Protein backbone atom coordinates (compact mmCIF):
# COMPACT_ATOMS: atom_id res chain seq x y z
CA UNK A 1 0.00 0.00 0.00
CA UNK A 2 1.24 3.50 -0.83
CA UNK A 3 1.73 6.26 1.73
CA UNK A 4 -1.19 8.17 0.25
CA UNK A 5 0.09 11.66 0.98
CA UNK A 6 -2.44 14.48 0.92
CA UNK A 7 -1.30 17.40 -1.24
CA UNK A 8 -3.26 20.54 -0.41
CA UNK A 9 -3.70 23.94 -2.05
CA UNK A 10 -2.42 27.16 -0.53
CA UNK A 11 -3.36 30.36 -2.33
CA UNK A 12 -2.29 32.58 0.56
CA UNK A 13 -0.06 32.26 3.64
CA UNK A 14 -3.19 32.05 5.79
CA UNK A 15 -4.58 29.21 3.67
CA UNK A 16 -1.22 27.47 3.90
CA UNK A 17 -1.28 27.55 7.70
CA UNK A 18 -4.88 26.35 7.63
CA UNK A 19 -3.98 23.40 5.39
CA UNK A 20 -0.97 22.51 7.56
CA UNK A 21 -3.07 22.63 10.73
CA UNK A 22 -5.83 20.56 9.13
CA UNK A 23 -3.42 17.71 8.42
CA UNK A 24 -1.89 18.20 4.98
CA UNK A 25 1.19 16.09 4.27
CA UNK A 26 2.30 18.71 1.77
CA UNK A 27 1.03 22.04 0.50
CA UNK A 28 1.60 23.53 -2.92
CA UNK A 29 1.82 27.21 -3.76
CA UNK A 30 3.30 29.72 -6.17
CA UNK A 31 4.69 33.24 -6.52
CA UNK A 32 2.66 36.33 -7.43
CA UNK A 33 3.55 36.24 -11.11
CA UNK A 34 3.35 34.31 -14.37
CA UNK A 35 5.56 31.48 -13.12
CA UNK A 36 2.57 29.45 -11.93
CA UNK A 37 -0.76 28.38 -13.39
CA UNK A 38 -2.94 30.16 -10.79
CA UNK A 39 -1.70 33.69 -11.43
CA UNK A 40 -4.88 35.27 -10.11
CA UNK A 41 -5.22 38.71 -8.46
CA UNK A 42 -4.90 38.57 -4.67
CA UNK A 43 -3.40 35.09 -4.65
CA UNK A 44 0.02 33.63 -4.04
CA UNK A 45 3.21 34.44 -2.17
CA UNK A 46 6.00 36.98 -1.99
CA UNK A 47 9.48 35.49 -1.46
CA UNK A 48 9.35 36.61 2.21
CA UNK A 49 5.92 35.06 2.71
CA UNK A 50 7.18 31.84 1.18
CA UNK A 51 10.16 31.75 3.56
CA UNK A 52 7.93 32.25 6.61
CA UNK A 53 5.46 29.67 5.29
CA UNK A 54 8.16 27.05 4.68
CA UNK A 55 9.36 27.56 8.25
CA UNK A 56 5.81 27.17 9.58
CA UNK A 57 5.20 24.03 7.55
CA UNK A 58 8.54 22.39 8.27
CA UNK A 59 8.17 22.94 12.04
CA UNK A 60 5.01 20.84 11.80
CA UNK A 61 6.41 18.17 9.52
CA UNK A 62 4.60 19.35 6.38
CA UNK A 63 6.32 19.70 3.01
CA UNK A 64 6.05 22.69 0.69
CA UNK A 65 5.93 22.22 -3.08
CA UNK A 66 6.51 25.24 -5.31
CA UNK A 67 4.59 25.39 -8.58
CA UNK A 68 6.70 26.72 -11.47
CA UNK A 69 4.38 25.07 -13.91
CA UNK A 70 3.84 27.55 -16.73
CA UNK A 71 5.75 27.90 -20.01
CA UNK A 72 8.09 30.91 -20.19
CA UNK A 73 7.83 32.76 -23.49
CA UNK A 74 11.19 33.34 -25.17
CA UNK A 75 13.00 36.33 -23.70
CA UNK A 76 11.41 35.98 -20.24
CA UNK A 77 12.96 32.72 -19.04
CA UNK A 78 14.99 34.50 -16.34
CA UNK A 79 11.85 35.13 -14.27
CA UNK A 80 11.38 31.35 -13.97
CA UNK A 81 15.06 30.77 -13.19
CA UNK A 82 14.97 33.43 -10.45
CA UNK A 83 11.83 31.85 -8.97
CA UNK A 84 13.64 28.50 -8.87
CA UNK A 85 16.68 30.10 -7.22
CA UNK A 86 14.51 31.73 -4.54
CA UNK A 87 12.65 28.47 -3.98
CA UNK A 88 15.87 26.52 -3.57
CA UNK A 89 17.27 29.11 -1.16
CA UNK A 90 14.03 29.03 0.83
CA UNK A 91 14.23 25.27 1.23
CA UNK A 92 11.10 24.14 -0.61
CA UNK A 93 10.80 20.37 -0.79
CA UNK A 94 10.07 20.11 -4.50
CA UNK A 95 9.44 22.10 -7.65
CA UNK A 96 6.42 21.31 -9.81
CA UNK A 97 7.47 21.99 -13.42
CA UNK A 98 6.16 21.61 -16.97
CA UNK A 99 8.60 23.36 -19.32
CA UNK A 100 11.63 21.33 -20.44
CA UNK A 101 13.93 24.36 -20.30
CA UNK A 102 12.91 25.08 -16.70
CA UNK A 103 13.24 21.39 -15.76
CA UNK A 104 16.70 21.25 -17.31
CA UNK A 105 17.79 24.39 -15.43
CA UNK A 106 16.66 23.04 -12.06
CA UNK A 107 18.16 19.61 -12.71
CA UNK A 108 21.53 21.25 -13.44
CA UNK A 109 21.58 24.13 -10.94
CA UNK A 110 19.52 22.79 -8.04
CA UNK A 111 19.94 19.01 -8.29
CA UNK A 112 19.35 18.61 -4.55
CA UNK A 113 15.69 19.68 -4.86
CA UNK A 114 13.09 17.13 -6.00
CA UNK A 115 11.35 17.67 -9.31
CA UNK A 116 7.67 16.84 -9.77
CA UNK A 117 6.18 16.85 -13.25
CA UNK A 118 3.14 19.12 -13.38
CA UNK A 119 -0.13 18.04 -14.95
CA UNK A 120 0.60 20.98 -17.29
CA UNK A 121 3.26 18.81 -18.98
CA UNK A 122 0.44 16.47 -20.07
CA UNK A 123 2.47 13.28 -19.72
CA UNK A 124 -0.20 10.62 -20.18
CA UNK A 125 1.80 7.56 -21.24
CA UNK A 126 4.63 5.58 -19.61
CA UNK A 127 6.97 6.68 -22.42
CA UNK A 128 6.27 10.38 -21.94
CA UNK A 129 6.71 10.08 -18.18
CA UNK A 130 9.95 8.15 -18.57
CA UNK A 131 11.27 10.87 -20.88
CA UNK A 132 11.06 13.36 -18.00
CA UNK A 133 12.34 10.87 -15.41
CA UNK A 134 15.38 9.86 -17.43
CA UNK A 135 16.32 13.35 -18.64
CA UNK A 136 15.54 15.53 -15.63
CA UNK A 137 15.40 13.08 -12.71
CA UNK A 138 11.69 13.66 -12.12
CA UNK A 139 10.61 11.86 -8.93
CA UNK A 140 6.84 12.18 -9.24
CA UNK A 141 4.32 12.72 -12.02
CA UNK A 142 0.97 14.44 -11.58
CA UNK A 143 -1.24 12.44 -13.93
CA UNK A 144 -3.72 14.10 -16.26
CA UNK A 145 -7.35 13.61 -15.18
CA UNK A 146 -8.11 11.41 -18.16
CA UNK A 147 -7.09 7.92 -17.05
CA UNK A 148 -9.15 5.10 -15.61
CA UNK A 149 -8.01 3.27 -12.48
CA UNK A 150 -6.94 0.14 -14.41
CA UNK A 151 -4.90 2.41 -16.69
CA UNK A 152 -3.25 4.08 -13.68
CA UNK A 153 -2.49 0.67 -12.19
CA UNK A 154 -0.84 -0.35 -15.46
CA UNK A 155 1.20 2.86 -15.80
CA UNK A 156 2.44 2.39 -12.22
CA UNK A 157 4.22 -0.81 -13.30
CA UNK A 158 5.95 0.89 -16.23
CA UNK A 159 7.42 4.04 -14.71
CA UNK A 160 10.26 4.61 -12.22
CA UNK A 161 8.60 7.47 -10.29
CA UNK A 162 5.74 8.16 -7.90
CA UNK A 163 2.20 8.99 -9.05
CA UNK A 164 0.08 11.88 -7.86
CA UNK A 165 -3.55 12.21 -8.98
CA UNK A 166 -6.17 14.87 -8.54
CA UNK A 167 -8.90 13.73 -6.22
CA UNK A 168 -11.10 16.74 -5.55
CA UNK A 169 -11.94 20.14 -6.97
CA UNK A 170 -12.20 21.84 -10.30
CA UNK A 171 -12.39 19.41 -13.19
CA UNK A 172 -10.53 20.62 -16.26
CA UNK A 173 -11.55 19.08 -19.55
CA UNK A 174 -8.79 20.00 -21.92
CA UNK A 175 -5.33 18.49 -21.90
CA UNK A 176 -3.53 20.78 -19.47
CA UNK A 177 -0.68 22.77 -20.94
CA UNK A 178 -2.18 22.54 -24.43
CA UNK A 179 -5.10 24.96 -24.05
CA UNK A 180 -5.15 28.47 -25.57
CA UNK A 181 -8.91 29.04 -25.29
CA UNK A 182 -8.53 31.84 -22.75
CA UNK A 183 -5.86 33.56 -24.83
CA UNK A 184 -8.06 33.29 -27.91
CA UNK A 185 -10.83 35.33 -26.27
CA UNK A 186 -8.97 37.54 -23.77
CA UNK A 187 -5.37 37.98 -24.92
CA UNK A 188 -4.04 36.41 -21.70
CA UNK A 189 -2.43 33.01 -21.96
CA UNK A 190 -2.91 30.06 -19.64
CA UNK A 191 0.48 28.61 -20.59
CA UNK A 192 2.56 31.80 -20.64
CA UNK A 193 0.70 33.99 -18.09
CA UNK A 194 -0.92 31.43 -15.78
CA UNK A 195 -4.39 32.82 -16.49
CA UNK A 196 -7.66 30.92 -17.12
CA UNK A 197 -10.99 32.67 -17.84
CA UNK A 198 -9.85 35.73 -15.81
CA UNK A 199 -12.32 37.51 -13.50
CA UNK A 200 -11.28 40.88 -14.93
CA UNK A 201 -12.90 39.91 -18.24
CA UNK A 202 -16.12 38.53 -16.73
CA UNK A 203 -19.45 40.29 -17.01
CA UNK A 204 -22.98 39.20 -16.12
CA UNK A 205 -25.51 40.87 -18.36
CA UNK A 206 -29.26 40.88 -17.61
CA UNK A 207 -31.24 40.47 -20.82
CA UNK A 208 -34.62 42.02 -21.55
CA UNK A 209 -36.50 38.75 -20.90
CA UNK A 210 -34.98 38.42 -17.44
CA UNK A 211 -32.41 35.84 -18.40
CA UNK A 212 -28.74 36.32 -17.56
CA UNK A 213 -25.75 36.05 -19.90
CA UNK A 214 -22.38 35.25 -18.39
CA UNK A 215 -19.75 36.70 -20.64
CA UNK A 216 -16.00 36.51 -21.03
CA UNK A 217 -14.38 39.37 -22.92
CA UNK A 218 -17.75 40.15 -24.49
CA UNK A 219 -18.48 36.58 -25.63
CA UNK A 220 -21.57 34.90 -24.22
CA UNK A 221 -20.27 31.69 -22.65
CA UNK A 222 -23.66 30.73 -21.26
CA UNK A 223 -27.14 32.08 -20.79
CA UNK A 224 -29.40 31.29 -17.84
CA UNK A 225 -33.14 31.54 -17.41
CA UNK A 226 -34.61 33.72 -14.64
CA UNK A 227 -34.89 30.64 -12.39
CA UNK A 228 -31.38 29.32 -13.06
CA UNK A 229 -28.27 30.22 -11.08
CA UNK A 230 -25.80 31.92 -13.44
CA UNK A 231 -22.47 30.10 -13.59
CA UNK A 232 -18.98 31.48 -14.03
CA UNK A 233 -18.04 31.83 -17.72
CA UNK A 234 -15.30 29.23 -18.04
CA UNK A 235 -14.99 28.62 -21.77
CA UNK A 236 -14.88 24.80 -21.57
CA UNK A 237 -17.93 24.71 -19.27
CA UNK A 238 -20.17 26.89 -21.40
CA UNK A 239 -23.22 26.12 -23.52
CA UNK A 240 -23.10 26.61 -27.26
CA UNK A 241 -25.14 25.68 -30.29
CA UNK A 242 -24.04 23.34 -33.07
CA UNK A 243 -25.78 22.28 -36.30
CA UNK A 244 -27.20 19.18 -34.58
CA UNK A 245 -27.72 20.95 -31.26
CA UNK A 246 -29.71 24.11 -32.01
CA UNK A 247 -31.05 24.17 -28.44
CA UNK A 248 -27.65 24.85 -26.92
CA UNK A 249 -25.70 22.24 -24.99
CA UNK A 250 -22.59 21.77 -22.92
CA UNK A 251 -20.27 21.16 -25.87
CA UNK A 252 -17.33 20.10 -23.68
CA UNK A 253 -18.54 19.36 -20.15
CA UNK A 254 -21.10 20.42 -17.62
CA UNK A 255 -19.88 22.63 -14.80
CA UNK A 256 -19.18 19.74 -12.44
CA UNK A 257 -16.44 19.32 -9.90
CA UNK A 258 -14.31 16.25 -9.42
CA UNK A 259 -14.90 14.16 -6.32
CA UNK A 260 -13.07 10.84 -6.17
CA UNK A 261 -13.65 10.21 -2.48
CA UNK A 262 -15.54 6.98 -3.16
CA UNK A 263 -12.64 5.70 -5.25
CA UNK A 264 -9.99 6.52 -2.64
CA UNK A 265 -9.43 2.93 -1.46
CA UNK A 266 -9.10 1.68 -5.03
CA UNK A 267 -6.67 4.45 -5.96
CA UNK A 268 -4.49 3.70 -2.94
CA UNK A 269 -4.54 0.04 -3.89
CA UNK A 270 -3.56 0.97 -7.47
CA UNK A 271 -0.36 2.48 -6.11
CA UNK A 272 -1.10 6.19 -6.22
CA UNK A 273 1.39 7.87 -3.88
CA UNK A 274 -0.22 11.23 -3.43
CA UNK A 275 -3.64 12.81 -3.77
CA UNK A 276 -3.99 16.36 -4.90
CA UNK A 277 -6.80 18.65 -3.84
CA UNK A 278 -7.36 21.43 -6.35
CA UNK A 279 -8.25 24.96 -5.24
CA UNK A 280 -5.56 27.53 -4.57
CA UNK A 281 -8.22 30.12 -5.36
CA UNK A 282 -10.50 28.80 -2.57
CA UNK A 283 -11.20 30.23 0.88
CA UNK A 284 -9.59 29.16 4.15
CA UNK A 285 -12.80 27.58 5.40
CA UNK A 286 -13.12 25.53 2.20
CA UNK A 287 -9.51 24.36 2.55
CA UNK A 288 -10.02 23.51 6.22
CA UNK A 289 -13.17 21.47 5.56
CA UNK A 290 -11.83 19.53 2.59
CA UNK A 291 -8.40 18.80 4.08
CA UNK A 292 -9.84 17.63 7.42
CA UNK A 293 -12.31 15.31 5.73
CA UNK A 294 -9.72 13.75 3.44
CA UNK A 295 -7.20 13.49 6.30
CA UNK A 296 -9.66 11.44 8.32
CA UNK A 297 -10.57 9.26 5.35
CA UNK A 298 -6.98 8.50 4.38
CA UNK A 299 -6.04 7.73 8.00
CA UNK A 300 -9.01 5.35 8.29
CA UNK A 301 -8.11 3.53 5.09
CA UNK A 302 -4.46 3.23 6.06
CA UNK A 303 -5.47 1.82 9.45
CA UNK A 304 -7.72 -0.72 7.76
CA UNK A 305 -10.89 0.95 9.02
CA UNK A 306 -13.98 1.78 7.02
CA UNK A 307 -13.68 5.43 6.01
CA UNK A 308 -16.62 7.74 6.48
CA UNK A 309 -17.17 8.82 2.92
CA UNK A 310 -20.40 10.63 3.70
CA UNK A 311 -18.49 13.69 4.94
CA UNK A 312 -16.52 13.87 1.72
CA UNK A 313 -19.54 13.48 -0.48
CA UNK A 314 -21.31 16.15 1.55
CA UNK A 315 -18.54 18.63 0.74
CA UNK A 316 -19.95 19.08 -2.72
CA UNK A 317 -23.57 18.72 -1.74
CA UNK A 318 -25.85 20.79 -3.90
CA UNK A 319 -23.26 20.81 -6.65
CA UNK A 320 -22.96 18.48 -9.54
CA UNK A 321 -20.02 16.17 -9.18
CA UNK A 322 -18.29 13.58 -11.28
CA UNK A 323 -15.76 10.83 -11.07
CA UNK A 324 -14.70 11.91 -14.54
CA UNK A 325 -12.55 9.54 -16.50
CA UNK A 326 -11.38 7.65 -13.42
CA UNK A 327 -14.40 5.38 -13.23
CA UNK A 328 -15.14 4.57 -16.84
CA UNK A 329 -13.70 5.29 -20.23
CA UNK A 330 -17.21 5.99 -21.49
CA UNK A 331 -16.47 9.53 -20.24
CA UNK A 332 -14.32 10.00 -23.32
Amino acid sequence: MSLAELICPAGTPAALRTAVDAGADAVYCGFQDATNARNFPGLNFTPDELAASVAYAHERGTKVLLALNTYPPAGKVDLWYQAADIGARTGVDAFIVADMGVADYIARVHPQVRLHLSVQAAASSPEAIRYYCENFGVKRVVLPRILTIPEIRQIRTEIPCEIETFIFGNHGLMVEGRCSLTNFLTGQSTNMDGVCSPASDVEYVRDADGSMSSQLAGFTIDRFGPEEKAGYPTICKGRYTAPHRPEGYYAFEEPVSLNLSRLLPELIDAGVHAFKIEGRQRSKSYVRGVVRAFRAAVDDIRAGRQANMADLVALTEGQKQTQGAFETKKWR
Partner: protein
Amino acid sequence: MAVNDMTKLTLGPVAYHWSAETRRDFYARIADECPVDDVYLGEVICSKRAPFHEPDLPATIERLERAGKRVILSTLAEVMLKRERKATEDLAAMDAPEIEINNAAGLFARGRQPHRIGPFMNAYNEATIGWMAAQGATHVCLPSEMPASAIAVAARAARDLGLGVEVQVFGRISLAVSARCYHARAHGRTKDNCQFVCEEDSDGMPLRTRDDQPILRVNGIQTQSESYMDLLPETPRLVADGVSHLRLMPQAVDMVTVAQIFRDALDRRVSLPEADAHLAALTGDAGLSNGFYHGEAGYRRIAIVTSA
Protein backbone atom coordinates in the same frame (compact mmCIF):
# COMPACT_ATOMS: atom_id res chain seq x y z
CA MET B 1 14.41 40.03 -52.20
CA ALA B 2 16.96 37.32 -51.56
CA VAL B 3 15.94 36.69 -47.96
CA ASN B 4 12.32 36.06 -48.93
CA ASP B 5 13.34 33.73 -51.73
CA MET B 6 14.90 31.46 -49.12
CA THR B 7 11.72 31.27 -47.06
CA LYS B 8 9.99 27.93 -47.40
CA LEU B 9 6.26 27.34 -47.46
CA THR B 10 5.01 24.20 -45.78
CA LEU B 11 1.67 22.40 -45.76
CA GLY B 12 0.73 21.13 -42.31
CA PRO B 13 -0.93 17.75 -41.69
CA VAL B 14 -4.66 17.54 -42.45
CA ALA B 15 -6.37 17.96 -39.08
CA TYR B 16 -9.79 16.69 -40.21
CA HIS B 17 -11.21 13.28 -41.06
CA TRP B 18 -11.14 13.70 -44.82
CA SER B 19 -11.97 10.48 -46.63
CA ALA B 20 -9.21 8.49 -48.33
CA GLU B 21 -10.54 9.58 -51.71
CA THR B 22 -10.62 13.26 -50.77
CA ARG B 23 -7.06 12.99 -49.53
CA ARG B 24 -5.86 11.25 -52.69
CA ASP B 25 -7.32 14.01 -54.85
CA PHE B 26 -6.02 16.70 -52.52
CA TYR B 27 -2.44 15.48 -52.50
CA ALA B 28 -2.44 14.83 -56.22
CA ARG B 29 -3.17 18.51 -56.73
CA ILE B 30 -0.62 19.51 -54.12
CA ALA B 31 2.01 17.44 -55.93
CA ASP B 32 1.16 18.78 -59.38
CA GLU B 33 0.30 22.41 -58.74
CA CYS B 34 1.05 23.66 -55.26
CA PRO B 35 4.11 25.86 -54.58
CA VAL B 36 4.90 24.46 -51.14
CA ASP B 37 8.33 23.05 -50.30
CA ASP B 38 7.53 20.73 -47.39
CA VAL B 39 4.43 18.60 -46.84
CA TYR B 40 3.53 17.08 -43.45
CA LEU B 41 1.48 13.88 -43.57
CA GLY B 42 0.04 11.59 -40.94
CA GLU B 43 -2.80 11.56 -38.41
CA VAL B 44 -2.17 14.02 -35.57
CA ILE B 45 -5.61 14.26 -33.94
CA CYS B 46 -7.33 10.88 -33.62
CA SER B 47 -5.74 7.45 -33.74
CA LYS B 48 -9.06 5.86 -34.75
CA ARG B 49 -8.92 7.61 -38.11
CA ALA B 50 -5.48 6.41 -39.13
CA PRO B 51 -6.52 3.03 -40.62
CA PHE B 52 -8.68 4.83 -43.22
CA HIS B 53 -5.88 6.73 -44.91
CA GLU B 54 -2.64 5.07 -43.82
CA PRO B 55 -2.71 2.47 -46.59
CA ASP B 56 -2.35 5.31 -49.11
CA LEU B 57 0.66 6.86 -47.37
CA PRO B 58 3.45 5.16 -49.33
CA ALA B 59 1.93 6.15 -52.67
CA THR B 60 1.26 9.71 -51.46
CA ILE B 61 4.81 10.08 -50.19
CA GLU B 62 6.18 8.78 -53.47
CA ARG B 63 4.01 11.10 -55.51
CA LEU B 64 4.92 14.19 -53.48
CA GLU B 65 8.63 13.39 -53.46
CA ARG B 66 8.58 12.83 -57.21
CA ALA B 67 7.15 16.34 -57.48
CA GLY B 68 10.13 17.67 -55.54
CA LYS B 69 8.44 18.11 -52.17
CA ARG B 70 10.08 17.18 -48.90
CA VAL B 71 7.74 14.90 -46.94
CA ILE B 72 7.63 14.77 -43.14
CA LEU B 73 5.46 12.40 -41.11
CA SER B 74 3.78 13.94 -38.05
CA THR B 75 3.02 11.96 -34.89
CA LEU B 76 -0.12 12.07 -32.72
CA ALA B 77 -0.62 15.01 -30.36
CA GLU B 78 -2.29 12.88 -27.67
CA VAL B 79 -0.74 9.51 -26.77
CA MET B 80 -2.43 7.43 -24.12
CA LEU B 81 -3.87 4.18 -25.49
CA LYS B 82 -1.90 1.12 -26.57
CA ARG B 83 -2.51 1.73 -30.27
CA GLU B 84 -1.40 5.35 -29.90
CA ARG B 85 1.79 4.34 -28.11
CA LYS B 86 2.48 1.73 -30.79
CA ALA B 87 1.81 4.16 -33.65
CA THR B 88 4.17 6.70 -32.11
CA GLU B 89 6.87 4.10 -31.53
CA ASP B 90 6.59 2.80 -35.09
CA LEU B 91 6.98 6.27 -36.61
CA ALA B 92 9.89 7.08 -34.33
CA ALA B 93 11.71 3.99 -35.56
CA MET B 94 11.67 5.10 -39.20
CA ASP B 95 14.80 6.21 -41.03
CA ALA B 96 12.98 8.08 -43.77
CA PRO B 97 11.12 10.27 -44.39
CA GLU B 98 11.75 12.83 -41.65
CA ILE B 99 9.40 12.85 -38.67
CA GLU B 100 7.77 15.63 -36.69
CA ILE B 101 7.10 14.76 -33.05
CA ASN B 102 4.05 16.09 -31.22
CA ASN B 103 4.20 14.25 -27.91
CA ALA B 104 6.94 13.49 -25.37
CA ALA B 105 6.29 9.77 -25.93
CA GLY B 106 7.69 10.32 -29.42
CA LEU B 107 10.76 12.08 -28.05
CA PHE B 108 11.35 9.14 -25.73
CA ALA B 109 11.15 6.64 -28.58
CA ARG B 110 13.25 8.71 -30.96
CA GLY B 111 16.21 9.15 -28.60
CA ARG B 112 18.88 11.32 -30.20
CA GLN B 113 17.99 10.50 -33.79
CA PRO B 114 17.21 13.62 -35.86
CA HIS B 115 13.64 14.86 -35.74
CA ARG B 116 11.44 17.92 -36.04
CA ILE B 117 9.53 19.40 -33.08
CA GLY B 118 5.82 19.86 -33.77
CA PRO B 119 3.52 22.68 -32.63
CA PHE B 120 2.06 20.55 -29.82
CA MET B 121 5.47 20.18 -28.12
CA ASN B 122 5.34 23.59 -26.40
CA ALA B 123 8.74 24.88 -27.54
CA TYR B 124 8.02 28.34 -26.13
CA ASN B 125 11.52 29.55 -25.35
CA GLU B 126 15.24 29.49 -26.02
CA ALA B 127 15.99 27.22 -23.04
CA THR B 128 13.59 24.53 -24.21
CA ILE B 129 14.71 24.87 -27.83
CA GLY B 130 18.34 24.56 -26.70
CA TRP B 131 17.50 21.42 -24.75
CA MET B 132 15.62 19.94 -27.71
CA ALA B 133 18.44 20.75 -30.14
CA ALA B 134 20.89 18.94 -27.89
CA GLN B 135 18.59 15.88 -28.10
CA GLY B 136 18.60 15.78 -31.89
CA ALA B 137 15.92 18.29 -32.94
CA THR B 138 16.71 19.82 -36.34
CA HIS B 139 13.65 22.00 -36.73
CA VAL B 140 11.02 23.50 -34.47
CA CYS B 141 7.44 24.65 -35.09
CA LEU B 142 6.56 27.30 -32.50
CA PRO B 143 3.21 27.31 -30.64
CA SER B 144 0.60 29.41 -32.47
CA GLU B 145 -0.22 31.60 -29.49
CA MET B 146 3.28 33.10 -29.25
CA PRO B 147 3.52 36.88 -29.74
CA ALA B 148 5.98 38.48 -32.17
CA SER B 149 8.44 39.50 -29.46
CA ALA B 150 8.83 35.90 -28.24
CA ILE B 151 8.92 34.50 -31.78
CA ALA B 152 11.86 36.80 -32.59
CA VAL B 153 13.90 35.64 -29.56
CA ALA B 154 13.03 31.96 -30.10
CA ALA B 155 13.78 32.13 -33.83
CA ARG B 156 17.19 33.72 -33.25
CA ALA B 157 18.10 31.06 -30.67
CA ALA B 158 16.98 28.27 -32.98
CA ARG B 159 18.79 29.69 -36.01
CA ASP B 160 21.99 30.08 -33.96
CA LEU B 161 21.75 26.35 -33.21
CA GLY B 162 21.23 25.57 -36.90
CA LEU B 163 17.55 24.66 -36.54
CA GLY B 164 14.78 25.43 -39.00
CA VAL B 165 12.08 27.63 -37.47
CA GLU B 166 8.44 27.33 -38.44
CA VAL B 167 5.34 29.38 -37.64
CA GLN B 168 1.74 28.76 -38.71
CA VAL B 169 0.60 31.61 -40.94
CA PHE B 170 -2.68 30.28 -42.32
CA GLY B 171 -5.64 28.19 -41.17
CA ARG B 172 -7.67 27.46 -38.09
CA ILE B 173 -5.63 27.54 -34.88
CA SER B 174 -5.48 24.51 -32.60
CA LEU B 175 -6.74 25.92 -29.29
CA ALA B 176 -7.07 22.75 -27.23
CA VAL B 177 -7.00 18.97 -27.30
CA SER B 178 -8.76 16.59 -24.93
CA ALA B 179 -9.13 12.93 -24.11
CA ARG B 180 -12.81 13.30 -24.89
CA CYS B 181 -14.27 13.43 -28.40
CA TYR B 182 -16.55 16.45 -28.73
CA HIS B 183 -17.78 15.41 -32.15
CA ALA B 184 -19.10 12.18 -30.66
CA ARG B 185 -20.51 14.10 -27.69
CA ALA B 186 -22.47 16.47 -29.93
CA HIS B 187 -24.15 13.42 -31.47
CA GLY B 188 -24.85 11.71 -28.16
CA ARG B 189 -22.10 9.13 -28.62
CA THR B 190 -18.79 8.36 -26.94
CA LYS B 191 -15.34 8.15 -28.45
CA ASP B 192 -15.47 4.36 -28.57
CA ASN B 193 -18.72 4.26 -30.61
CA CYS B 194 -18.29 7.52 -32.53
CA GLN B 195 -19.06 5.94 -35.93
CA PHE B 196 -16.67 8.53 -37.36
CA VAL B 197 -19.25 11.27 -37.33
CA CYS B 198 -16.42 13.82 -37.63
CA GLU B 199 -16.19 12.93 -41.32
CA GLU B 200 -19.30 15.09 -41.88
CA ASP B 201 -17.39 18.29 -41.11
CA SER B 202 -14.53 18.79 -43.54
CA ASP B 203 -13.65 22.16 -41.99
CA GLY B 204 -14.66 21.40 -38.41
CA MET B 205 -18.05 21.55 -36.66
CA PRO B 206 -19.06 25.15 -35.90
CA LEU B 207 -19.97 26.15 -32.36
CA ARG B 208 -21.88 29.39 -31.86
CA THR B 209 -22.59 31.29 -28.68
CA ARG B 210 -26.18 31.31 -27.45
CA ASP B 211 -26.54 34.80 -28.88
CA ASP B 212 -25.51 33.34 -32.21
CA GLN B 213 -21.94 34.53 -32.64
CA PRO B 214 -19.57 32.08 -34.31
CA ILE B 215 -16.76 31.27 -31.85
CA LEU B 216 -15.07 27.85 -32.08
CA ARG B 217 -14.80 24.72 -34.24
CA VAL B 218 -14.82 21.14 -33.01
CA ASN B 219 -12.66 18.55 -34.72
CA GLY B 220 -12.90 15.30 -32.79
CA ILE B 221 -10.81 15.72 -29.64
CA GLN B 222 -9.51 19.06 -30.90
CA THR B 223 -10.99 22.54 -30.43
CA GLN B 224 -10.03 25.07 -33.08
CA SER B 225 -10.52 28.76 -33.72
CA GLU B 226 -13.50 29.80 -35.81
CA SER B 227 -11.35 32.27 -37.71
CA TYR B 228 -8.44 31.35 -39.92
CA MET B 229 -5.07 32.60 -38.77
CA ASP B 230 -3.69 34.94 -41.41
CA LEU B 231 -0.16 36.26 -40.96
CA LEU B 232 0.36 37.19 -44.59
CA PRO B 233 0.80 40.92 -43.78
CA GLU B 234 3.30 39.94 -41.08
CA THR B 235 5.48 37.74 -43.32
CA PRO B 236 8.20 40.40 -43.90
CA ARG B 237 8.71 40.75 -40.17
CA LEU B 238 8.59 36.98 -39.59
CA VAL B 239 11.26 36.49 -42.24
CA ALA B 240 13.37 39.38 -40.90
CA ASP B 241 13.15 37.85 -37.41
CA GLY B 242 14.60 34.56 -38.64
CA VAL B 243 11.56 32.36 -39.29
CA SER B 244 12.57 30.02 -42.11
CA HIS B 245 9.35 28.06 -42.73
CA LEU B 246 5.78 29.32 -42.96
CA ARG B 247 3.05 26.74 -42.33
CA LEU B 248 -0.28 26.65 -44.12
CA MET B 249 -2.86 24.42 -42.44
CA PRO B 250 -5.14 22.55 -44.87
CA GLN B 251 -8.69 23.89 -44.77
CA ALA B 252 -11.66 23.18 -46.99
CA VAL B 253 -10.73 25.99 -49.37
CA ASP B 254 -8.58 26.06 -52.48
CA MET B 255 -5.22 25.40 -50.83
CA VAL B 256 -3.29 25.56 -54.10
CA THR B 257 -4.39 29.16 -54.54
CA VAL B 258 -3.73 29.94 -50.87
CA ALA B 259 -0.14 28.72 -51.28
CA GLN B 260 0.24 30.66 -54.54
CA ILE B 261 -0.91 33.86 -52.82
CA PHE B 262 1.70 33.43 -50.09
CA ARG B 263 4.43 32.49 -52.57
CA ASP B 264 3.70 35.47 -54.80
CA ALA B 265 3.73 37.83 -51.81
CA LEU B 266 7.01 36.37 -50.51
CA ASP B 267 8.59 36.72 -53.93
CA ARG B 268 7.23 40.28 -54.24
CA ARG B 269 5.33 39.49 -57.38
CA VAL B 270 2.19 40.83 -55.71
CA SER B 271 1.94 43.56 -53.08
CA LEU B 272 0.93 42.53 -49.55
CA PRO B 273 -2.36 44.44 -49.48
CA GLU B 274 -3.34 43.00 -52.83
CA ALA B 275 -2.37 39.48 -51.77
CA ASP B 276 -4.24 39.79 -48.48
CA ALA B 277 -7.36 41.05 -50.21
CA HIS B 278 -7.19 38.04 -52.52
CA LEU B 279 -6.87 35.73 -49.51
CA ALA B 280 -9.84 37.36 -47.76
CA ALA B 281 -11.98 36.92 -50.87
CA LEU B 282 -10.93 33.29 -51.24
CA THR B 283 -11.70 32.33 -47.64
CA GLY B 284 -15.10 34.03 -47.66
CA ASP B 285 -17.02 33.85 -44.40
CA ALA B 286 -14.32 32.23 -42.31
CA GLY B 287 -12.91 35.48 -40.99
CA LEU B 288 -9.19 36.09 -40.65
CA SER B 289 -7.31 36.80 -37.45
CA ASN B 290 -3.80 37.62 -36.27
CA GLY B 291 -4.35 38.64 -32.64
CA PHE B 292 -1.92 36.15 -31.09
CA TYR B 293 0.97 37.52 -33.11
CA HIS B 294 0.25 41.03 -31.84
CA GLY B 295 -0.13 39.92 -28.21
CA GLU B 296 -3.90 40.41 -28.33
CA ALA B 297 -6.88 38.08 -28.11
CA GLY B 298 -6.34 35.47 -30.82
CA TYR B 299 -9.65 36.07 -32.60
CA ARG B 300 -8.80 39.71 -33.31
CA ARG B 301 -7.80 41.12 -36.65
CA ILE B 302 -5.16 43.81 -36.12
CA ALA B 303 -4.52 46.09 -39.07
CA ILE B 304 -0.85 46.71 -39.63
CA VAL B 305 0.70 49.48 -41.67
CA THR B 306 2.69 47.92 -44.46
CA SER B 307 5.53 49.83 -46.03
CA ALA B 308 5.37 49.83 -49.80
